[in-house]
Every structure is written in structure tokens, then in C-alpha cells.
């Protein structure tokens, strides 16, 4: 997702959705911690923001004073910190962890200001409680690489407030002034070496008022933030002990798989379910409404296997007569024609010097649809109970936007929003697919659960997608076509750059449209164009309507804009006989010191320009900013028998302060591999007459260990507040690789995945 909007910029539609989401009050913690009622507390204190299911305030029933302060729910330690009597500190994270490591990073931030004993810190997922909204966006969201960036101050303040309360409790017990006390390693230390552990103080501390203002540490005092720190879930994830949404098991639970129409928004023409119902273990075959007005057939069974066999035994004829059948070849032709016309204007520089420019590049780029394909197939488990106004719904799934999903579930199920509970589960990847404005897989699972209950099955239902459902199920990174006409001189000074982009809008029709689509231009499509270069650019865009659901895909617009910008800049350097690093540094200028620093670091560490490469190898360079972080790559590649191969990657990263450098390194390695993925054969979703042609990892290929280059990641030192890290490592990898290929072959690949004909 693109740059962070302020709350004031949020549209009315989104605010309404958020309001609905925030109506959801007490939800039962899925983590098995004791449930305490805060409704009584809320009534007594006039504090009506809902309850904190994991609250440390649960340690102090009747702690009215703690809740009565003027702080927002997102600022109350009670919702985020639980200190057990044995000193174990449990931190609730306000995000989904789906691999990016925030279930370690956010507790580190809080524990830093708390002066906790890190060996006794744990973390749990929050839920759709209002305390767990993003403090900047004001809604529940894990996206836009914003988890650490937007919660850095929030979690530090939470830690500092908790610490101040513990100090106050110790001061009261010892009857000394708080200023005479200090904290270290999970204890308050007083005059004469007296010591009380946080576990001993927690109950008393949480009855005290929450301080509204706290003084935060100078970054020079940090002991934990900035230290390479092991993940809290490393053991569980190495031993099969980590539970994910797909692993949720409820008593009597049934499993559903859904036969989806072959064309998006298709409906059932006729259904013969005789053979499916005869499969042992199949309990029901149900017609269910699907996303986009489509219709599907759910087979509900005792487990996944009989459900799958039942689905295979269905005889369905689909009605697709009334829906558009998108076709990649036809789309490409129509996009190409559109790109000849100017579209909605983003930048409007003077193009009069284009015609007479001494040197010119005319280029067309094509990017395919891409599936996210997270390793954990999409799933959602729904338990319904009660009737009428007392009807309740509980949902278990990994989701990046639990608030919107809760609102969608309430709508589909006809359940009051406050009766919908979300149990956020660790997710096996997502890359954007679990942040879905339409809540497609949640809506589908709710539709299945509702239909099952109406058919007399009073059981929780897990709706589980197969890999084929995932690959064929839509919500892809959109297909794009770029056209560029560039005029420049012998020095490489750019005189005019005319550029058109064609691609579906991700946000049109979504709750985000009103504040992220401006003047007909979807901001996620043009992010990453032009900056940081001072270029006279005329940029316009077209957003055709196509019957293919699209969505943000890790690093969103920069997946294509970085490629186009960085390969064209490199081509200008090469065609004017200039070193691509020196050329970039000159063109970037002094206004972008973080770009300069990241690029210089990657250059210095890689040995670029100093080290002789083995025969047949070439250097490739690219630098790009996304989500406020700059990543530069210097790579080594070769082309053997027409096949490009990436051998080595050196990264220079400017993410300001790296909270957990180990996590930053992992994010860069992983994002680089995903960038590489877009270059390799098989990285394309294509449609033929409305039907997606790929189905599984056999024909939608993703990188394997044999594709992985050696990687070295370097971080520019900084004490400034951290910027995004989940996505910025992706965009510059593909263009750096392409630039090396261009040096070897004389030709820049202009279609992804690479096609060297």
C-alpha cells in the first residue's frame, strides 16, 4: 500500500466501515488467556471504548482509575501488556504476523522502554478490538509495510507507561520518591539495592493511573532496539508447534471446499450432486453466493479429503453467458492501443524538446497478472450460534484487516456487528492476499457456514481453498503495459520523458477509493514513477475495466514502476557511455541523501568497479524507494545458453533505525527472492476466454533453493524513526538483474517474466 494517509483524509465510506468494525466489543481471546469482563468496568468509569480481552488490567478487577484517563484505546497499556506473577511479559501485537516478524519486533520496542527481561517476553495476536487499530490509519490493518513504522512510538509509549506504573507501585511500597528508583532487566531497583520484580509489582501497578505523558529514552540508551534478535517463534516454527488458521480445530468441525465458476462471476446453470452426496463423509452439497455476484457449490464433509472427492464428483454446468471473458492476448492488444492515447494526467511537463532530442529511447513494457500464492492456502473457520438478535459468529483465520472482515461477516450473516468475534491466527504468508477490501474468502466462508446451518448442520465449518482455488481464484497483481518515449542528450541529460501506463485500478470500487484515487488516477499505480530523479515527465494513465479481480501484491505499484524507471535510467547511462552508478548519483542529486547512501553502501560492499568479475558475468544496479525505505542492489548475473542466472546480490538498505537487524535482513532476502520470482519462467497468470490457464506450482512457478543467489545485506546506520521494511526489498531486484542481462546481451528484457528470444 502507498504512503500513509492521515486519519482526516479517510473517506466517509471507510470511516463508516471502521465505525462498524469498531462496534465489535468484547471478543474472546483465542490464545487461552483468562477472559475477564470489562463491561462492568466500562460502565463504572464511563469508559466506553470496548474491552481489552488480553488486558493486564485483568490483573486488577475494578481498576477503574486505570481506564479513566484521557488516553485512546491504542495508548492503554492494559490492552497490550500482561505481566504474570512469575515475571513473564506477554505483549499483544496489533498486527498479523505472516512472516515479517512483527511478533518479535513490536515486543522488542515495548520491552525496550519497559526495561523488561527479554528472555521472559512473549507475544500474542490481538483481534478486532478497537485497541488494535493502526494508530495512524485508524483501522485494523497489516499492510503498507507500516507495522513497525506506524507503531514505533505507540509501543515505546506503551512500554514507558507500563514502566512508570511499575515504578510508582514500587515507590508506594517502599515509601520513597519514584525519582530515586531505576529499572533494569524486569525489576525495579531502589536505594540500597532493594529490588522488586515486575511480576511482584504488576497487580498493584495496574491499579494505578496510567500516565498520559512519558519521557522516552534517547536512542543512545537502547539496549534491545537495534540488536540482532532471534524470533520468538523460531522453535515453534521449527518443530511443527506453531498453529495457523488452517490448524484451528473446533469440536464437531466440518470442512467445506467450494466449486468456483470457471469464469469470474459465473453462476450455476445446472447442478447434479447425486454422485457427490454418495461420497462417504460428505454431509451436504450447498449452493452458495460468491464474491462479485458469482455463485458456487460448497461440498461440506467430515474432512478435507471427502470434501475434495465430493467436489470432483459434482456435475455442474456453469452460466457464463452474461459475464465478460477476459483474455490475456486480447487485453494486451487493447492495452497497446490505449497506450497510444494520453490518459488521466499525473505529471504534465513540457514535451516540446522530445521531437528534436539528439538521442531517443522508445520502449514498451509488459507485466502479467501475478498470484500471491502464500504457502498456507486461504481458509476461514466460522462458528455460528444463537438466533435473532442473540445470533453470534466467531471466525478463525489469518487476516490483514480483521475489522473490515468482521464488518463483512456481520453483513453476510445478518449478525449484529458486536456479536462477531475474530480470532486472528498466525498466517502462512499473505503478500497482500489477506488484506482484501472485499473480504472475499471470509464472505465465502460465512456464506458456506450460513447455508450449512440452514441445511440443519449445526457445526463449525472450515472453508478451505485448494492450491488450484488459490491460483485460479483471482485478486492478482494487475497486468500492466507501459509506453515510454524519452529524449536526452549526449551527456544523458533528459530533455523530455513521455510516459503512459495502462492497467486496472486496484482501489476503484473499494473503501479506499475515495482517498487513494485522485483525478481518476489510482495512486498505487503511479507510485515509484519519476522519484528520485529530476525528470521533465509527462505521465498519464488508463484504468480499463476488466473482469479479473485485482489486488495489491507485495510492494504494489513499485513491482512495475521500479522496473521501468530503473531499466530505462540504466539504458540512458549505457547509451551515453556512462557508468550507471555515477550517472544515478548525479541524477539523484543532493535532495535525496538516503538514496545516495543506500546506493553507495551497496556499491562499496559489493566491490563494484573495483573487483573483476569472472568471464561471462556482468554487474547490474538499481535503487528504489518504497514505503519510505530505500533499497539499492548491486548484482552479478550471467546468461548461459539463453538462460539468465542471478549469482550474487549485495543490498544497501536505508530504513532509518533497524529495530531488529536480523529481521530486516530476512525481509530483504525474502523480498529480493520475490523480485527475482517475477523474472523467472512461469511467473505469469494468463487467461484464455475468461479462464485462468495456470493451476498449481507446476505451471505457476515460484523460485526454489536452486534459484537463490548468494545474498549480503547491509544497513545504513541511523537513529531516526524506522520506515517500512516488509516490501521495499522487492522492487529494485528485477531491474538490477535486467540491467546485468542487458550488459551481457545488449538488450533490456522489457517483458516479465524474462523472454530472451
Amino acid at each position, binding site marked *: 500500500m502507498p504512503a500513509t494517509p492521515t486519519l482526516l483524509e479517510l473517506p466517509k465510506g471507510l470511516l463508516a466501515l471502521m465505525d462498524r468494525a469498531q462496534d465489535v466489543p468484547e471478543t474472546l481471546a483465542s490464545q487461552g488467556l483468562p477472559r475477564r469482563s470489562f463491561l462492568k468496568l466500562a460502565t463504572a468509569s464511563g469508559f466506553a471504548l470496548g474491552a481489552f480481552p488480553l488486558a493486564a488490567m485483568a490483573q486488577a478487577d475494578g481498576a477503574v482509575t486505570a481506564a479513566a484517563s484521557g488516553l485512546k484505546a491504542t495508548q492503554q497499556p492494559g490492552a497490550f501488556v500482561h505481566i504474570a506473577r512469575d515475571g513473564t511479559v506477554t505483549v499483544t501485537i496489533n498486527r498479523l504476523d*505472516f*512472516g*515479517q*516478524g512483527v511478533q518479535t519486533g513490536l515486543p522488542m520496542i515495548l520491552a525496550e522502554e519497559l526495561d523488561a527481561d527479554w528472555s521472559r517476553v512473549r507475544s500474542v495476536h490481538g483481534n478486532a478490538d478497537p485497541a488494535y487499530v493502526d494508530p495512524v490509519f485508524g483501522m485494523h490493518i497489516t499492510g503498507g509495510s507500516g507495522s513497525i513504522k506506524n507503531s514505533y512510538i505507540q509501543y515505546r509509549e506503551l512500554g514507558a507507561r507500563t514502566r512508570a506504573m511499575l515504578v510508582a507501585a514500587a515507590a508506594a511500597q517502599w515509601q520513597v520518591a519514584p525519582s530515586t528508583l531505576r529499572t533494569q532487566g524486569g525489576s525495579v531497583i531502589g536505594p540500597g539495592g532493594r529490588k522488586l520484580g515486575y511480576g511482584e509489582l504488576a497487580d498493584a501497578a495496574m491499579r494505578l493511573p496510567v500516565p498520559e505523558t512519558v519521557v522516552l529514552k534517547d536512542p543512545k540508551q537502547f539496549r534491545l532496539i537495534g540488536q540482532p534478535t*532471534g*524470533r520468538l*517463534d*523460531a*522453535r*515453534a*516454527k*521449527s*518443530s*511443527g*508447534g*506453531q*498453529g495457523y488458521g*488452517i*490448524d484451528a*480445530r473446533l469440536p464437531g468441525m466440518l*470442512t467445506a471446499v467450494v466449486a468456483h465458476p470457471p469464469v469470474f462471476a459465473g453462476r450455476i446453470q445446472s447442478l447434479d450432486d447425486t454422485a457427490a452426496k454418495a461420497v*462417504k463423509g460428505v454431509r451436504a452439497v450447498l449452493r452458495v453466493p460468491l464474491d462479485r455476484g458469482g455463485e458456487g457449490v460448497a461440498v461440506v464433509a*467430515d*474432512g*478435507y*479429503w471427502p470434501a*475434495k472427492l465430493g467436489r470432483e464428483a459434482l456435475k455442474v454446468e456453469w452460466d457464463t453467458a452474461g459475464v465478460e471473458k477476459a483474455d490475456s492476448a486480447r487485453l494486451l492488444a487493447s492495452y497497446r492501443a490505449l497506450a497510444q492515447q494520453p490518459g488521466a494526467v499525473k505529471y504534465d511537463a513540457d514535451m516540446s524538446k522530445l521531437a528534436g532530442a539528439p538521442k531517443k529511447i522508445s520502449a514498451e513494457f509488459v507485466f502479467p497478472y501475478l498470484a500471491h*500464492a*502464500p*504457502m*498456507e*492456502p486461504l481458509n476461514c473457520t466460522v462458528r455460528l450460534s444463537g438466533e435473532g438478535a442473540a445470533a453470534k459468529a466467531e471466525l478463525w483465520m489469518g487476516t490483514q484487516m480483521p475489522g473490515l472482515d468482521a464488518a463483512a461477516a456481520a453483513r453476510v450473516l445478518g449478525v449484529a456487528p458486536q456479536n462477531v468475534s475474530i480470532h486472528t491466527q*498466525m*498466517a*502462512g*504468508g499473505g*503478500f497482500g492476499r489477506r488484506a482484501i477490501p472485499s473480504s472475499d474468502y471470509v464472505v465465502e466462508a460465512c456464506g458456506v457456514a450460513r447455508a450449512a446451518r440452514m441445511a440443519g448442520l449445526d457445526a463449525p465449518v472450515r472453508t*478451505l481453498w*485448494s*492450491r*488450484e482455488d488459490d491460483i485460479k481464484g483471482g485478486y492478482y497483481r494487475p497486468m500492466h503495459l507501459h509506453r515510454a518515449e524519452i529524449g536526452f542528450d549526449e551527456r544523458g541529460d533528459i530533455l523530455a520523458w513521455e510516459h503512459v501506463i495502462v492497467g486496472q485500478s486496484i482501489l476503484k470500487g473499494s473503501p479506499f477509493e475515495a482517498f487513494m484515487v485522485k483525478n481518476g488516477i489510482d495512486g498505487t499505480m503511479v507510485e515509484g514513477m519519476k522519484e528520485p530523479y529530476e525528470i521533465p515527465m509527462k505521465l498519464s494513465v488508463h484504468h480499463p475495466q476488466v473482469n479479473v479481480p485485482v489486488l495489491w501484491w507485495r510492494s504494489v505499484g513499485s513491482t512495475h514502476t521500479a522496473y521501468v524507471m530503473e531499466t530505462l535510467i540504466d539504458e540512458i547511462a549505457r547509451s551515453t557511455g556512462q557508468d550507471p552508478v555515477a550517472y544515478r548519483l548525479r541524477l539523484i542529486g543532493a535532495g535525496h541523501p538516503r538514496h545516495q547512501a543506500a546506493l553507495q553502501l551497496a556499491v562499496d560492499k559489493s566491490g563494484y568497479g573495483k573487483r573483476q568479475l569472472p568471464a561471462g558475468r556482468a554487474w547490474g544496479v538499481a535503487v528504489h524507494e518504497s514505503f519510505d525505505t530505500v533499497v539499492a542492489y548491486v548484482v552479478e548475473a550471467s546468461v548461459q545458453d539463453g538462460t539468465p542466472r542471478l549469482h550474487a546480490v549485495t543490498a544497501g538498505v536505508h530504513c532509518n533505525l533497524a529495530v531488529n537487524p*536480523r529481521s530486516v535482513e*530476512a525481509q530483504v*532476502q*525474502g*523480498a*529480493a*527472492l*520475490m523480485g527475482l520470482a517475477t523474472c523467472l519462467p512461469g511467473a505469469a497468470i494468463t487467461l484464455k476466454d475468461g479462464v485462468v490457464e495456470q493451476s*498449481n*506450482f*507446476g505451471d505457476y512457478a*515460484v*523460485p*526454489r*533453493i*536452486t534459484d*537463490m543467489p*548468494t*545474498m549480503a545485506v547491509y544497513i545504513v546506520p541511523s537513529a531516526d524513526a524506522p520506515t517500512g521494511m516488509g516490501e521495499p526489498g522487492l522492487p529494485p531486484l528485477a531491474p538490477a538483474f535486467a540491467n546485468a542481462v542487458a550488459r551481457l546481451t545488449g538488450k533490456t528484457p522489457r517483458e516479465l517474466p524474462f523472454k530472451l528470444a
Partner: protein
Amino acid sequence: MAVNLTLNGKATSIDVDPSTPILWTLRDTLGLTGTKFGCGQALCGACTVHLNGSPIRSCVTPVAAAAGQKLTTIEALAQDKVGKAVQDAWVRHDVAQCGYCQSGQVMSATGLLMNNRKPSDADIDAAMAGNICRCGTYVRIRAAIHDAAQALA
């Protein structure tokens, strides 16, 4: 119909249709959810378990094939010296990100080290190429396997 086998060292009788894949028998019938579903076609390796000590893809192997055999899943791997060494190396190197594929990765790596205590990079490539990781943990997987090999030496 019952299928009898030795599961994680214990004689086990499972009431299941013998044509059901081992994966779904483990996950849905027995509640052993450490073994993961990724593709259902032996393309990603997330479902890897050991049949008589050798890695197999449980999503395409009917449970009948394990009748009378020894089946080991990630849940019991720490009982094996090699498996424990691999898991410890995985923790030291912080291999996991989302972690979803890692049960399968650890099972494949353990299978490799059981037969080859000093694998080369090429050996690792050959043994691990069937296991997909979307988070891109391959650099650390390689390092952790070398590290586990050292620890076992």
C-alpha cells in the same frame, strides 16, 4: 477399515479409508497438524514426512502405503538425534519467517543428513529443491543444514 502402522514410534490403528492421503489422515483424523497442506500434488514439499526414515510427500501417498511401516512426522522429529540437530540449527539461524513450509523443510533436511553427514551445496540443492518457501528463507536453510552437519560431526 483400520490401517495399522507405527506412527512416531507407537503402534497405531487408524480408522480411515485406506485410500485417504497420509496428509489428511494426520491432519483431519488424528489432529496432527504440524504436517502442512500446500499444493496437494507433491509440488511444494510442505507435507513431507518420513516413511521408514525417507522423506515422502504425504499429500499424494495413500495411508494404505504406510500400513505395517514406520511413519514419522515433525511432531516426533526431536526424538531423533539428526532431527534435533536440524531443528536446533533452524532456531540458531532464525530460518523461519511465516514458518508454514518449515515442517516440510526440516523433514527434508533431516532426511538428507540421515544419509549424508557432510552434504555439499549441490547435495543440498538436490535434496531441498522439492520444498518451496515463499518467504525466501533459502539462504538460511542452506546455512542451517551446513551448521547442523557440523554439529553432528
